[in-house]
């Protein structure tokens, strides 16, 4: 449902992406990966119409997103920016309720549909028990679930998330990604996320987009495209890719580097 045609994006005098054509599958969990400063967040922000491209277009179901009213886009596309600013003293229910903004006007502020959507979003993101707590008193993992609940209340077909697991410990990362996975499988939402952790990306993504220097190097299901060659090509990292003992998804294990194995180690170094 989201695609780019000849997209070029940059900041001031620096070009980040130049001439990118990309189609993201609908009804899939797409994860964009790549080294720091490869342009993955820039791409996501441009697709979310938070950044204006220098050239080219972002298409939402075939229509140029820049030509659509921003409120209309907000009813079809939810966006969670990287580390959003938490307003002081705002409660969870209040913040989640703001996801209903695209359906409201100042003379039509709250409808029964708003009520249902906010409640469902809080239940789905498992923050209903926190409804009356101020968001700035919550832990990082809880906050992130609240923000996701806000975008869920928007009731959109698609959800774009910019590094939704940053600053979270591993358990909370898994919790957030499990939630996104459920959105995909149980609610049929299209989910697109930028992630740092390759192994979590491989575990959860239906569709992987690997980027380097503002260009897409490979796209496809992780089990097909995530190889040691790709990791070396994209990240410049020597590694071994083995099947994950839990999910069978590709698991990237970095090569020794400057480490040395202790004598008698059961590991036979493979690289």
């Amino acid at each position, binding site marked *: 449902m989201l695609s780019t045609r000849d997209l070029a994006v940059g900041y001031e005098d620096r070009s980040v992406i130049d001439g990118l054509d990309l189609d993201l599958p609908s009804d899939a969990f797409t994860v964009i990966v790549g080294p720091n400063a490869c342009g993955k967040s820039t791409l996501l922000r441009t697709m979310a119409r938070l950044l204006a491209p220098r050239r080219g277009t972002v298409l939402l179901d075939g229509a140029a997103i820049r030509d659509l009213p921003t409120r209309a886009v907000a009813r079809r596309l939810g966006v969670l920016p990287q580390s959003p600013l938490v307003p002081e003293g705002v409660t969870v229910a209040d913040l989640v309720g703001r996801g209903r903004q695209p359906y409201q006007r100042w003379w039509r502020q709250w409808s029964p549909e708003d009520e249902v959507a906010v409640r469902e979003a809080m*239940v789905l993101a498992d923050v209903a028990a926190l409804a009356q707590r101020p968001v700035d008193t919550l832990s990082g993992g809880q906050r992130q679930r609240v923000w996701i609940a806000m975008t869920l209340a928007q009731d959109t077909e698609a959800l774009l998330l910019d590094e939704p697991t940053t600053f979270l410990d591993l358990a909370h990362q898994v919790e957030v990604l499990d939630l996104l996975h459920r959105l995909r499988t149980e609610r049929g939402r299209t989910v697109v996320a930028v992630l740092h952790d390759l192994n979590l990306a491989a575990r959860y993504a239906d569709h992987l987009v690997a980027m380097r220097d503002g260009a897409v190097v490979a796209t496809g299901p992780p089990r097909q495209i995530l190889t040691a060659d790709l990791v070396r090509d994209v990240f410049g990292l020597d590694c071994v890719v083995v099947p994950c003992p839990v999910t069978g998804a590709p698991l990237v294990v970095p090569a020794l580097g400057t480490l040395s194995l202790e004598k008698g180690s059961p590991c036979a170094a493979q690289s």
Partner: protein
Amino acid sequence: MTGRSEVIPAMPVGRTLVRLGPTRVVVRHRPLLVGGALALLLAAAVVLALSLGTPYVAPQDVLRSLTGAGTRYDLVVLELRLPRVVLAVAVGAVFGIAGTLIQTVARNPLASPDVIGVSQGAGLAATVALTAGASAVLIAPAALAGGLLAAVAVLLLGLRHGLAAQRFVLAGVAVAVALRALTEVVMLSADPIDGIRAQIWLVGTLAGKGWRETAYLGATLLLLLPVLLWAGWALNGSALDDDTARGIGLRPVARRVGLATAGVLAAAMVTAQVGAVDFVALAAPQMARRLVRAERPPLFCAALVGALLVVLADLAGRRLFAPTQLPAGVLTAALGGPYLIYLLLRARRKVS
């Protein structure tokens, strides 16, 4: 819907949905209660301001005069004191509204018309007019033009970066400093008597003013009313960062420009009429915000707090050292210092 999810309140507590035909508006309880209490306090302060002075008029006589029952104090209450008190209410309300709008855009509790250059623009123009011997009728229009020009300069300087909070404040401070320096130059090179007249104007006083100034401010409020109705709702999204706001379909830059324009317009209008009454636009929004415990200053309550502050400051200026009259601006400024220190201490406690 499961039984469990039905008990989950989706509407934050302390709010009620008010339906009026097709209109549905969410009303917050606390601002309503605080607003009611403030209105009562304001009414009491107005009666007090009408009764204190020489001669003293008992509050019941004030009320009788106000309701048209006719007393021998009608002249004192209705014609000498009422115009100035009503003006104080209007001045405070407009300063409160201007401060709320400006602070919201600046995301900074210390921003106010005199931090972003509007007061200095009005002050420079008024000083030039006063020292050049322009007739008294021309002072207010000149000040209005000066304030608006300064506001336009600040908006244009800030607009290059979408009127981002920091940019807006920095542009304002730069314009304010430059204009203040120019004002000093004009004042020092002028005739000393004109200089003193300009000085008094700059501090802000309600003395000798009344219905005419009130009418201007009333017209300003009426003109801004549709904007204010919208702003009360638009301010809700103002606590979110730009990306998040865009994500839920808001246009943060357009909103900021709208709110800031309304704010500086109101500030320029009121400053042109009574001068830069310090501190009201700064403190009223923050005091109102603490009273209603919201994440942003509430527009209506800030107007009431502003009105209350100016009525009390003008009353104190009139009575504290009677028969010497102090301009209201001196008293509000004297309160401003300690208030800033309080804000700073609070901020430091929060960090630690």
